[in-house]
């Protein structure tokens, strides 16, 4: 076959070369669909019942074969087993045989299609794609009907191709033989990606044009760019082998060096902190080289309960975290949710526009008892470690003055009760509303540090709901309005002599970090997973390069030009990142 390239969505990094093995399970496309005689209805219904029973037995066998350490995966297989056992699907198909006088295969297809129709209306992309689970479960039944049940096997090492892989398939496949895998269906969140990443097998899903004709072909599977190269030439083979070796080195180096400081080659150091939500994440924070916790989101403790947590419960959590991290810092952000995210106890009437409603600090100022309890718990933790207090969504100076007044009041209460706390615990605010950004020079006089929350700042500044796919393309981290906002906040903070940290996804984006360095941010706080590669990137750049880049980006009038500038800079100085990283800037960045 002639050389060609197929494109899909990269879900697991890496590159591999091998012969294609096509896993054919597309019974729905190949089954025979025909009408039956009225007196054959009962016989056909029996055939279908037996197929459901046999498929259930088969899945029970698969379930028993799931290794101990893949318990999550076992639950997926179990879900498919429950789907096969679900009365509704079977009853619908049985009814279709009787009513429409069609064979079992056709009736099953009809029943699945009926469920599918209810799924197309689902808004959430991930949940909509769960229709796949129902089809895969039904496929097991169909496999029995067409006499094709049984394990998926790979006899020799190669690149596994399939239209689709069900959780049961994933158990049956011997992954020691799989060099890489690609499927025609699936999206960013599919379980194939999750499994491939955990097994460190390069993978591409949603590949257009992937079918059985590729079986036996020599293939390069490129899990960085989402490409499947069929029948590549010698040049491409040589290049991909080299790239694979370089990626192995890169991964090893990144992890091995994650405990070195994030210092540029010309000696500028930036504190690299972690964002966490659960106490359990502390292990990852330690292992991946974070120098403290730059953002502890406290919302989780407040969710799914009738009454808000008590001071004791909160204090215990905060004390544990502060003492285990000491002397490194722990920035505790107070409750950052709106009424819409809390269950009965803390909620009240529905809001038309929760993002602009009674949330975060506004909510706390309205519900003083909830706020008091949390502030007391944080103050109590301040004596055992390096605790910082961070307030979300502050909109301006009046609000800040009001919060500080209340904070003093709480401090006085504790003092009167003889409860120890650090009076000079650093007090900071999130800079995430355009109104706070514009008045950063004023606010800087009143606090000990700023933390720029880029996710919300971008959303509020550009007026974009990122989860709305119709406008998500307008989410541009390097929009001149965003770059100028961040720069102004950093400069205002520094003029007042306070530290400025950037948290949010922008701080984990290799293409945005050099711009932040040029601005001289004091710290970045990001998800623990991204810390090793971001620290390595910082160690490979110089402040001189970052300064030059920032100057150009500040002068740039368009997002496109800014994106190109950062891309060129990364390409010149840290080319590995260009190949191996994922960026917010858009698809073309990695290419």
């Amino acid at each position, binding site marked *: 076959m002639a050389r060609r390239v197929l494109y899909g969505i990269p879900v697991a990094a890496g590159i591999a070369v091998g012969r294609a093995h096509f896993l054919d399970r597309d019974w729905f496309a190949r089954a025979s669909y025909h009408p039956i005689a009225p007196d054959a209805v009962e016989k056909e219904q029996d055939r279908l019942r037996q197929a459901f029973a046999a498929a259930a037995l088969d899945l029970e066998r698969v379930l028993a074969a799931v290794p101990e350490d893949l318990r999550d995966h076992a639950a997926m297989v179990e879900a498919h087993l429950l789907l096969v056992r679900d009365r509704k699907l079977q009853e619908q198909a049985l009814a279709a045989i009787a009513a429409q006088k069609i064979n079992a295969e056709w009736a099953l297809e009809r029943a699945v299609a009926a469920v599918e129709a209810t799924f197309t209306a689902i808004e959430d992309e991930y949940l909509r794609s769960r229709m796949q689970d129902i089809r895969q479960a039904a496929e097991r039944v169909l496999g029995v009907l067409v006499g094709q049940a049984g394990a998926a096997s790979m006899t020799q090492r190669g690149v596994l191709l399939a239209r689709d892989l069900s959780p049961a398939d994933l158990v049956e496949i011997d992954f020691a033989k799989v060099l890489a895998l690609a499927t025609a269906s699936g999206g960013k969140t599919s379980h194939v990606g999750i499994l491939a990443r955990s097994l460190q097998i390069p993978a591409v899903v949603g590949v257009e044009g992937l079918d059985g004709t590729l079986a036996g072909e020599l293939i390069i599977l490129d899990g960085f760019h989402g490409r499947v190269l069929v029948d590549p030439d010698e040049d491409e083979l040589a290049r991909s082998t080299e790239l694979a070796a370089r990626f192995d080195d890169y991964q090893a180096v990144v992890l091995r060096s994650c405990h070195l400081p994030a210092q540029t080659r010309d000696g500028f150091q930036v504190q690299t902190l972690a964002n966490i939500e659960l106490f359990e994440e502390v292990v990852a924070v330690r292992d991946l080289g974070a120098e403290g916790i730059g953002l502890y989101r406290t919302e989780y403790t407040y969710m799914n309960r009738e009454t808000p947590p008590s001071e004791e419960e909160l204090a215990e959590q905060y004390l544990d975290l502060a003492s285990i991290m000491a002397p490194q810092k722990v920035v505790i952000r107070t409750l950052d949710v709106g009424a819409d995210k809390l*269950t009965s106890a803390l909620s009240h009437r529905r809001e038309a526009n929760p993002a602009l409603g009674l949330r975060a600090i506004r909510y706390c100022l309205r519900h003083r008892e909830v706020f008091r309890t949390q502030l007391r718990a944080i103050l109590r933790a301040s004596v055992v470690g390096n605790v910082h207090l961070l307030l979300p969504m502050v909109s301006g100076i009046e609000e800040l003055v009001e919060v500080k007044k209340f904070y003093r009041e709480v401090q006085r209460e504790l003092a009167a009760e003889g409860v120890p706390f650090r009076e000079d615990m650093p007090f900071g605010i999130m800079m995430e509303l355009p109104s706070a950004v514009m008045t950063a020079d004023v606010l800087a006089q009143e606090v000990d540090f700023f933390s720029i929350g880029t996710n919300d700042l971008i959303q509020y500044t550009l007026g974009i709901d990122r989860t709305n796919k119709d406008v998500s393309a307008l989410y541009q981290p390097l929009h001149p309005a965003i770059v100028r906002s961040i720069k102004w906040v950093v400069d205002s903070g520094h003029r007042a002599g306070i530290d400025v940290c950037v948290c949010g996804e922008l701080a984990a984006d290799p293409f945005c970090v050099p711009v932040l360095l040029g601005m001289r941010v004091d710290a970045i706080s990001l998800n623990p997973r991204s810390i090793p590669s971001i620290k390595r990137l910082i160690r490979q750049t110089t402040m001189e390069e970052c300064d030059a880049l920032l100057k150009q980006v500040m002068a740039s009038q368009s997002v496109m030009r800014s994106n190109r500038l950062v891309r060129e800079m990364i390409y010149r100085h840290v080319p590995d990142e260009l190949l191996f990283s994922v960026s917010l800037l858009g698809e073309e960045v990695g290419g």
Partner: protein
Amino acid sequence: MDRGAVGMTHENGSWTREVQVVNPLGIHARPAGKICQTAGRFTSQIFLETEAGAVDAKSILDILTLAAPRGTRVCIRAHGPDAQEAVEAVAQLFVDRFGEE
């Protein structure tokens, strides 16, 4: 109206409790399976209600069509001899994030 264990209410022979989906991916196949298995252990009729409607908590197919993403509020309702225990058991799955990170 009568208040039982945490957040439970009892009215006209049925027990209810409101919970919220807090696991990041919402109620996908795995959580739906857990709900269906847990509900199946009780003799009471058990329903999950959202703004979109009510579904049978003993049918995984039904639960999946509920399509509840993170943040959705779900009211668990049960009638029958073991209704209170059933609501409590199903609610606990939500509280525990279905065992997910």
